[in-house]
C-alpha cells in the first residue's frame, strides 16, 4: 500500500466525512464514494498543499471530456496516487 494512497484516503475521509475504512485503492472517487465536483475542489486543495503540487484538474477533465482518458485513470484512488507520485517526481526533477 503506497503512502500516497494512505494520505489521499485520509484527506478524503476528513474532507468529505467518509468513514476511512470504506476507502480502498480500488474506490472510484465519484462512482463509489459519491464525491462531487465541489468536494473534489476541497480535496484538490488539500492534496496540492500536502504534496506541494498543482493537480492539473482542468487538463484531466478535458481529456475525459474529449474521450482521451477515462475517469478511472484519474479518479480510482490507486491511479490517482500514481498520478500524484508522477507529479511529485516531476516537481523534484524540475520537469
Amino acid at each position, binding site marked *: 500500500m503506497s503512502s500516497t494512497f494512505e494520505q489521499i484516503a485520509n484527506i478524503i475521509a476528513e474532507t468529505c466525512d467518509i468513514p476511512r475504512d470504506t476507502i480502498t485503492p480500488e474506490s472510484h472517487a465519484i462512482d463509489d464514494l459519491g464525491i462531487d465536483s*465541489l468536494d473534489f*475542489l*476541497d480535496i*484538490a*486543495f488539500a492534496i*496540492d*498543499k500536502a504534496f506541494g503540487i*498543482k*493537480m*492539473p*484538474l*482542468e*487538463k484531466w*477533465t478535458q481529456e475525459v471530456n474529449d474521450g482521451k482518458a477515462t475517469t478511472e485513470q484519474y479518479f480510482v484512488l490507486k491511479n490517482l496516487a500514481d498520478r500524484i507520485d508522477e507529479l511529485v517526481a516531476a516537481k523534484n526533477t524540475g520537469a
Partner: protein
Amino acid sequence: MQLEYFQLIDRIIDLNIVEKTITVEAQVPQTNTIFEGHFPGFPIMPGVLLTEAMAQSSGWLLLGVMKFERMPFLAMIKQAKMRGFVSPGQLLTIEAKIEHEGSGFAVTSAKARVGKDLVCSADLTFRHIPFPDPALRVHMDAMAEKIGFPQQAVPHD
C-alpha cells in the same frame, strides 16, 4: 456600495499582483430598504452581504492575478465569522490574499475592518473559467475602471 446591483466594492486602495493581495474600501449606505427589515430599530449589515463584499474583494484580486483572462465565481465559504456589527454609513476596509492557486480554482482569505476593528473574516474558494460571455468581460472592464482598478493591470485586446 450599490446594494441593489450587488456592487459592494467602491474603490481599490491597493493591488499587489506579486504578493497577491488587495485592499479595497466599501462604503455602507446610510439608508437602504435592507436596513428597514434588518433590523427595525437596530439596522446592521447582513452577514451574507459582508461575506459577499469579502468575496468581491477576492474576485478583483483574482481577476488581476489572472490578467482578466478568466472569471472567478464563488464556490465555497469556510470559517465565515461575523465578529462585530456593521452599521449604516460605516466604511469597510477589506483585505484579501490568495492562499492557493489550483487548477481551475483558487482559495483566498479575507478580512474586513471598520477603522481598526476586525468585523468579519472568511476563507473563500472560487472556481474560475474563461469569460462565459463577452458582455460580462465588457461589464467587468467598466467596473474595473469605476472602482479604480490599476489600468496597467487590465489587459486590453
